[in-house]
């Protein structure tokens, strides 16, 4: 891989992600105040003592943004990675084996998708103990139904190609066919989906936080911070827009990198490089 061949947009995306990751990793060192520490009065303006002002309880917004990066990125990323692993494994197995296994998986997936995601999540999270790993798992399982759909569709297209038949004729096992023959040829659409799903995960997490079933206060997460400060908008206070901007910025950065990766992998096929 040649560093020079990486376009500017991808550099911007990578810089943004790196920035967010550094914030997340070294949060206690960077943040001027504590995560839940009340340091001033309610909704102080930006500038002055507090770089980005304070929130609805008088906590430093900048510090909370930095700590929030931790939970938000970790939970969203873990949920997305998990949902992709699960969804792709199941969908590829279904596409390669076909028959009864395909039918069982697909109909079960339809069943899961028939229940509205948010309601399903509310019911499950209300019943289960409120722990971070359970939250991640529930988000991953719910999201994996979407991944399953797209994964099965792209894998079916590839599974009927002659090189897969050639691999079968060679006597290769299902594992080889899935990971060596099909997966590399379905990476482009799946990577694009990954970028999109990651952004959705952040939003879903903030929805859950808003309803009180996501990240529990006083821990900060970007979606929860939007919720906490939303009332300020009425009074012309922009505190809610700052974490919102962070979510948008991160989603854009992830997608810039994904776009570049997609271009790189699709050009191998001799396909349209600019697609």
């Amino acid at each position, binding site marked *: 891989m040649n560093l020079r061949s990486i376009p500017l947009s991808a550099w911007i995306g990578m810089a943004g992600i790196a920035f967010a990751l550094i914030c997340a990793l070294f949060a206690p060192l960077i943040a001027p105040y504590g995560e839940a520490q009340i340091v001033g009065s309610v909704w102080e303006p930006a500038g002055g003592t507090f770089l980005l002002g304070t929130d609805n309880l008088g906590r430093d917004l900048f510090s909370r943004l930095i700590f929030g990066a931790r939970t938000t990125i970790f939970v969203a990323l873990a949920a997305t990675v998990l949902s992709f692993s699960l969804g792709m494994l199941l969908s590829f197995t279904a596409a390669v084996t076909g028959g009864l296994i395909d039918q069982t998986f697909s109909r079960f997936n339809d069943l899961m998708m028939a229940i509205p995601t948010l309601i399903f999540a509310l019911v499950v999270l209300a019943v289960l103990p409120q722990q971070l790993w359970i939250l991640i798992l529930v988000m991953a399982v719910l999201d994996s139904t979407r991944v399953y759909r797209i994964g099965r569709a792209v894998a079916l297209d590839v599974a009927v190609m002659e*090189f897969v*038949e050639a691999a079968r004729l060679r006597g290769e096992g299902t594992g080889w066919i899935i990971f060596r023959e099909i997966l590399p040829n379905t990476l482009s659409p799946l990577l694009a989906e990954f970028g999109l799903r990651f952004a959705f995960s952040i939003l879903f997490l903030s929805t859950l936080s808003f309803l009180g079933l996501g990240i529990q206060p006083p821990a900060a997460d970007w979606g929860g911070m939007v919720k906490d400060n939303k009332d300020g908008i009425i009074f012309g206070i922009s505190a809610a827009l700052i974490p919102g901007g962070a979510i948008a910025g991160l989603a854009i950065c992830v997608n810039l990198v994904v776009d570049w990766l997609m271009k790189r992998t699709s050009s*191998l096929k001799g396909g349209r490089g600019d697609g």
Partner: protein
Amino acid sequence: MADLLSVRDLKIEATSYPPGERPRTVTLVEGVSFDVEKGKVLGLIGESGAGKSTIGLTALAYGRGGVRITGGEVRLNGEDLLKLSPGGIRKVRGAKVCYVAQSAAAAFNPAHRLGEQVIEAALRHGVMTRAEAEERALYLFRVLGLPNPETFGQRYPHQVSGGQLQRAMTAMALCPNPELIVFDEPTTALDVTTQIDVLAAIKHAIEETGTAAIYITHDLAVVAQITDDILVLRHGKMVEYGSVQQIIEAPQAEYTRALVNVRGTRSEEAVDQSDTLLQVENITANYSNGFTVLHDVSLHLPKGQTLAIVGESGSGKSTLARVITGLLPPREGTISFDGKPLPKALKKRSNDELRRIQMIYQMADTAMNPRQTVREIIGRPLTFYYGLRGKEKSARVNELLDQIEMGGQFADRYPAELSGGQKQRVAIARALAARPELILCDEPTSALDPLVAEGILKLLLKLQEETHVSYMFITHDIAIVRAIADSVAVMHRGRVVRFGPKSKALSPPFDDYTDLLLKSVPEMEIGWLERVLKTRRMESAGN
């Protein structure tokens, strides 16, 4: 000026966008000049990428997909088409110059009746009234020998066969009474037995209506039947331009000579055909929907020899290969390999049984994983069957690359970075890597240009001599059978209608189908078409 179309010093360029590089301008065609007289037919011939279609389309002043005509002139009746306004060109296209595409199935709108589409251009250009146009369409359907010409126009495109659709498209082009028609490989996608009928129909219609034509094809034998002049192209440049007589009988350029002699290869068949490797007995197979594709097929293949399976599409020849590989377990019958019965289903076969039968596909593009390098593609069977790794594997990959006459510098390329012929060679190397005893070749040369295809055939013969591998070679081309086979099986509608050593199978007395098949293969001879049409006994079925 007697010439209808006169093209002078044509230059065509396009912009290519190589991944990861700056866009650059490529010259597709340069310095091409030719003339078409009224009522005459010019053949454009060359391999893929030679610029035949691009040149043909300039007669309509059209550049496909970002192609630009940047130099020269194209005069129709003395008027330079390249200088016309878009409105002026529109008056020419579809009225004075018409186009017949290779794939009629893709060129017709499936939602409208054929008759409407045939007369559409004539009405749109105001050349004739609806009644006149319908009358002319009826006349053309008759001239083109379409069944039930009175009601043919009432049908939808999916209700007629491929050959009929191609003729309907010819009718569509002829309907506005154009001065020139551009035929872009009109018979290439058809079966041999259908091709001859369409060819005859087109020829008859051109003669009857007195229209001039440009006929584009890669098959010199086809073009020899239908045209007056031939222009041979290669890499966008003129190689040779002359009358049919001169090109076929006294070609000047070396490239043309190679094209004329391309079907000349003949191999002697093996005398001793007793040592059987593959024995197929009474195979009957059907698809999961119950449709029976193979009826009671029996044949055998001796060790180290080549069995050619000939037939048109739908005759079940590829299905037979699938049955032998185990992808489609037969309903009845047995397959034995080297004296032992072979399990019917793929899953029941051992790796060694799989190793001994390898397969080469028609489309090398789709038969190789685009994400693997040549080294990975060839190396996998070595690891899988023989457990080779590291240096040993690398050495064997290089050895195989040498065997297919490509060399080690190709090892780290991806399939997209190879030409069509090279891809097929890599596919052969992958099959050879398993050291098989039988290779099933499913039309491995039919997607390739004639000279490249000949190279592949020679390679296969050379490899057979070196490794004593047997081939079951599926093809629709009798010329290939003559070139490489020891024994021949002719298939028609799922049955083997003829089976035996080549010398016996391809000499009279013939059954009706074999007669038709043999007489449908165009020969490099002027007047062949007329001769054959007079002498054949059976009409091709699905024309």
